[in-house]
């Protein structure tokens, strides 16, 4: 699948289906596994920004719709895709957005430490925003942090293996 639009569409369907049908239905340490963030993690870097926002919005909307959490996932996904370039810069060093098309070209040839720091930063910020909006009270900040840490670690483990299996070439 070389056409980027087909690729995105395929990912959209597969990731939303697997999140809604499989991962929403079981809890690990009372936390869901949020693998849908892979969509943002491997989103093409030099894609039209406005389109990227709109596609992410629709993707989040679909998952929100099936998770009964109206707007919360969409909100945190939008923030995630906004901060993604900065996080990549932080994790992998300097890069030029316009030159390279695939996220995998950065990730191949980088150390495990860099990859994990990228995953951790993305998941941690995403879960932090998600849980903050969901719990929505600063009195329970310890609970927010606790949930954020546990669910981001679980999600990182699952996502890392999924990325290794399915997204190695086409990320």
């Amino acid at each position, binding site marked *: 699948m070389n056409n980027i639009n087909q690729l995105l569409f395929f990912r959209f369907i597969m990731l939303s289906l697997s999140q809604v049908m499989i991962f929403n239905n079981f809890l690990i340490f009372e936390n869901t596994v949020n693998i849908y963030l892979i969509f943002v993690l491997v989103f093409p870097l030099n894609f039209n*920004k*406005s389109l990227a*926002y*709109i596609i992410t*919005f629709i993707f*989040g909307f679909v998952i*929100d719709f099936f998770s009964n*959490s*109206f*707007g*919360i996932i*969409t*909100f945190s996904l*939008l*923030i995630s895709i*906004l901060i993604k370039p900065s996080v990549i810069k932080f994790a992998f060093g300097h890069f030029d957005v316009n030159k390279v098309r695939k996220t995998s070209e950065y990730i191949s040839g980088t150390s495990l430490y860099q990859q994990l720091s990228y995953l951790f930063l993305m998941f941690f910020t995403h879960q932090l925003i998600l849980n903050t*909006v969901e719990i*929505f*009270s600063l009195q329970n900040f310890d609970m927010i942090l606790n949930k954020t840490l546990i669910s981001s670690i679980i999600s990182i483990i699952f996502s890392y293996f999924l990325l290794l299996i399915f997204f190695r070439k086409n990320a």
Partner: protein
Amino acid sequence: MRNFVDFIIKNINSIIFLILISISITQIFSRNYFQASKFNLFSSSIVNSINEIQTEMFEYFDLIKLNQKLVIENSFLKNNYDYYYENDSIIFNKNYSYTPSKVISNSIKFSKNFITINKGRYHNIEIEDGIITNQGVIGIINNVSDRFATGISILNSQIKINVVLKKSEHFGSLYWNGKNHQIMELEDIPKSANIAIGDTIISGGMSSIFPRNIPIGVICNFKLPESTNYYEVSVKLFEDFGSLRNVYVVKNDFKEEFNDLKKMNE
């Protein structure tokens, strides 16, 4: 217009992002009950605190009007409910009428102090009416013009006021020695009166000027000189004459009858 379009084209990414994020935020607050109620609570608390500050501010500016209203209401109450029960029969004590007024000038630094108020002959004020507040006796009217009146302050070494010890009903005269504007001297309290520091002094009502039961002050010091039968008592006044603002002019409606009766004995 062209600049506007240019601006939109330039910032299209940010604008789309903002639109999308605001849509998601409105979704969060419109369709999640918990977040919506929390948000409402938060926003209403902010709005309420702003409203509170606003009302406090307006209230502050309305204090003058409020004060005038209260003074009028007070005098109305005093005029209508000034009676007391005595010996199983109701003595209707409504022989005093009250006129609220404001102090225009007042002094405390001389030995003979005078006070000027903003009510005069037009307001039915006459010489020898009393001036009081609810915290004490202030003075006696000595001159009246059409719109103003002056009075002798009780901080004046020339006048003496009839007062009563609230506890034991012993009466005496209160006068000022010209030293401290918060302390007055009380004389003619006999040795038999068992007085103590902190006893309350009230107006005696034996003159035709002031009604009875106006609180005046408390005993702050007393001694019994040798070879006399009367105490020398210092009284600390309730009213601070340095900050006098609203006063009432009290008029005895049966003053002439009272004075005529007195004259018949002389």
